[in-house]
């Protein structure tokens, strides 16, 4: 990270400014503190999760410094705030089971947070995602996704047997009782509502992806997955017909270089592709490319900036870090014996996997572009705040997974 900061300074200003190295120094100090806290309160936690998150956060900080040095300072403040939340979760939520008791409150809070922007939200870049509190902007969907995962984990842990039992058949497919479809319908409704009212295709896809993943893990019914996806596809298709902003996403995905739209509607995606293509294998070098041509480059398009200046190697390294984080998270899920812990871990991992896939796939034109942040890397307080809570929960889970296994093996040995 220090090397990154120094090379950015050299490339942008042609000299080293030692004072500005305070930013990476503080960031490094924060993660050292987090590590110590982790070792004290949850000593058996997975040792890789925090370093991976740190690497992603540092990479993000270096890129933000390069793209918009003013934002780097804010990002550092957000990291500090998020770190405090991380510590609070580690210290007070070590007994994560207690969360299950508040599942309906948490679920309701999530829905309220999501719906709040529809009425009192502020529209930025054509999407209604922001709440303004004084001078601060807050994106409630970031926190809502974590709360929703907790709710769903608790709900499924309690009800998954009921959902799996099928009482009658429709067209030869075993289907459970209709009342158990209600949560499915509800989630579908929430996702479509986000798409319609908030014009936020990214969050909509993310919520539904998380839901389907957890539903599948909990019930092992492929039928749910197929029905769910079909319903979402139907909803998406209807929205495509009805709303211009959804149509734009698709047409610019299919034809990003259309001369008619390249100056306006497909400007972002085409600029992103120009940036990536100029990166090549090893990139232009930090501070030596032109990623600032891409609008919102520090938030949604930070992955394109990484691709341009650090090349395919740098971009693939980022993907690899998410893969590692997901793999470690899945290991945590497997290590747990209770359903709530398992499902909670699966849900949290799904957030990381699906969110990073949606945005990385979007800016590289693998899938239609949807505006969401790249976890830990993108600039933004709400995003960092939510992702650090997510990380803390996952670390707590990994600690508990490891310790319960040890005790159960010991108990088994005693018998």
């Amino acid at each position: 990270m220090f090397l990154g900061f120094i090379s950015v300074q050299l490339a942008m200003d042609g000299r080293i400014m030692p004072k500005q190295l305070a930013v990476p120094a503080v960031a490094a100090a924060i993660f050292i503190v987090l590590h110590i806290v982790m070792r004290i309160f949850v000593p058996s936690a997975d040792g890789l999760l925090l370093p991976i998150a740190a690497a992603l956060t540092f990479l993000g900080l270096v890129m933000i410094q390069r793209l918009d040095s003013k934002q780097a300072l804010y990002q550092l403040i957000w990291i500090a705030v998020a770190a405090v939340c991380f510590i609070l979760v580690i210290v007070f939520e070590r007994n994560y089971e207690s969360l299950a008791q508040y599942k309906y409150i948490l679920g309701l809070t999530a829905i309220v947070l999501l719906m709040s922007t529809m009425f009192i939200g502020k529209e930025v870049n054509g999407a209604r995602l922001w709440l303004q509190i004084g001078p601060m902007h807050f994106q409630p969907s970031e926190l809502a996704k974590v709360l929703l995962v907790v709710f769903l984990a608790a709900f499924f842990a309690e009800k998954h047997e009921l959902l799996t039992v099928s009482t009658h058949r429709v067209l030869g497919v075993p289907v459970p009782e209709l009342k158990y479809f209600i949560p499915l319908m509800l989630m579908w409704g929430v996702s479509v509502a986000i798409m319609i009212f908030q014009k936020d295709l990214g969050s909509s896809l993310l919520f539904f992806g998380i839901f389907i993943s957890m539903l599948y893990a909990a019930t092992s019914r492929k039928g749910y997955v197929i029905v769910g996806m079909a319903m979402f596809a139907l909803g998406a298709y209807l929205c495509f017909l009805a709303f211009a902003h959804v149509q734009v996403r698709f047409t610019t995905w299919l034809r990003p270089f259309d001369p008619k739209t390249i100056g306006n509607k497909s400007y972002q995606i085409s600029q992103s592709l120009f940036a990536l293509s100029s990166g090549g294998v090893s990139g232009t070098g930090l501070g030596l490319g032109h990623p600032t041509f891409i609008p919102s480059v520090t938030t949604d398009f930070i992955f394109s900036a990484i691709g341009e200046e650090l090349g395919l190697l740098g971009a693939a390294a980022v993907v690899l870090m998410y893969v590692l984080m997901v793999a470690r998270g899945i290991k945590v899920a497997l290590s747990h014996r209770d359903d709530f812990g398992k499902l909670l871990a699966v849900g949290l991992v799904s957030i990381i996997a699906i969110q990073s896939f949606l945005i990385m796939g979007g800016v590289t034109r693998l899938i239609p572009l949807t505006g969401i942040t790249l976890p830990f890397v993108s600039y933004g307080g709400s995003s960092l705040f939510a992702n650090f809570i997510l990380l803390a929960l996952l670390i707590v889970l990994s600690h508990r997974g490891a310790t319960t296994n040890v005790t159960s093996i010991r108990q088994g040995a005693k018998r």
Partner: protein
Amino acid sequence: MNRQIKVLLSVFLIIMLAIVVNLSWVQIFGASKIQGNGFNKRRLVQEYAIQRGDILTADGNQPIARSVDTGAEYRYQREYPMGALFADVSGYDSWKYGRTGLEQSYNDALLGRDSTLTLRSLGNRLLGASKKGNSIVTTIDSRIQRTATEALGKDVGAVVAMDPKTGAVLAMVTNPTYDPNVAVPSPGKDAAANQAQWDAYNADPHRPLFDRAINGLYPPGSSFKVVTGAAALDQGVVTADSPFNCAGKLVVNGFTIYDFGRQTHGNLTFAQAMVVSCNITFAQVGLRLGAPALVNYAQLFGFNKTLPFDLPTTASHIQSAAKMDQVELASASFGQGQDLATPLQMASVASTIANGGVMMQPYLVDAVQDYNGKIIEQNQPKKMRRVIDQQTAGTLTDIMVKVVTSGTGTAAQIDGVDVAGKTGTAEVGNGEPDAWFICFAPAQDPKVAVAVVVENGGEGGVTAAPIARNVLKTALRVLP
């Protein structure tokens, strides 16, 4: 439940793999196709991030073109402080319209990316100077350039002045011309007015963007008699005193050639024929010389081949000997028929005579400097070839001095200086003839050679000679 979680893991791994696969397409295998898109402004931005070097005059290194830091996306943009005065020399460098002139031909040097990686340039690069280009020092003297521009005035035509001993071009003027600043739509300018002016340049029937000095082809008329005379004297076909008779007309293969203005010169020597510019005598000289010799000498002077120069030139033209019949040979001998020459070509002809028969390669750039003003490349004058004997050149010079003292070129006389010159009045398809004057001075130790052409200017001795005289006077005053 663990089985499903493992299935989820595989799904997540597959979608992540898909990203890397797609990314390697976008960044490597399909990258050049994406980069080539016209809407990708990265290449331009990279070029304009470099502080392009200056283009300087020979006298006191005044900037003809310099870079201005606009702070905009295309950061360093061009400014031409002297407006239209050097337009045909510098050309323009514009992200909108591309490049011409020295901006084009010395682009790599101006951007500082010469292929020659010397120890110094490597050192500069390591010291972070890679974003500063090199400057080029031209051979153009601003005082001569200004005089030539003023002397030409509103006349459509061109002036080229050269140092006959080196081939260095001292002035190069074409009229009408344009303001290269108009080609650079830099921030802060009135974009609409700029565009309107640019469109007007392109719509103008006189083509101000066209460089007549190096690309304009004109029938050279009697100024070509210098070439015919040089060939005939050098081959020993005639001497200065060879007797000729002009009956006002000459019948060749049943075709009657009349002299200019249907004059009759009677008995006269070869030298006198040059002084009064007698077409009938030169038709006879050409017939005596033969097509192969005439064409050969014209080609030695540079015809039928683009002159090597720092800017792209158009080749002057003479019919090939094999295709030339006797009538065409007779007309070609006094610069009509199919003869066509650029002002740069005719300036080279005058220079070659002035330089004792040795043709120097014309050039426009004297040196390339790095951003510290250190010369990193010095252009040396290049001898192209010996065209005629020194003795022939001397004889021809003496005759050309008489053209100015007592012949058709008296308007080019300068007090106390021997001027050698030759007029040309070239008949053209439409309107008044094109007026030519080629000359050099001082005749015994030439410092400057000049060619002037004025389109539809009438008689060379009346229209072109006074312009050449002004240029000579300034050059003799300012040159060391």
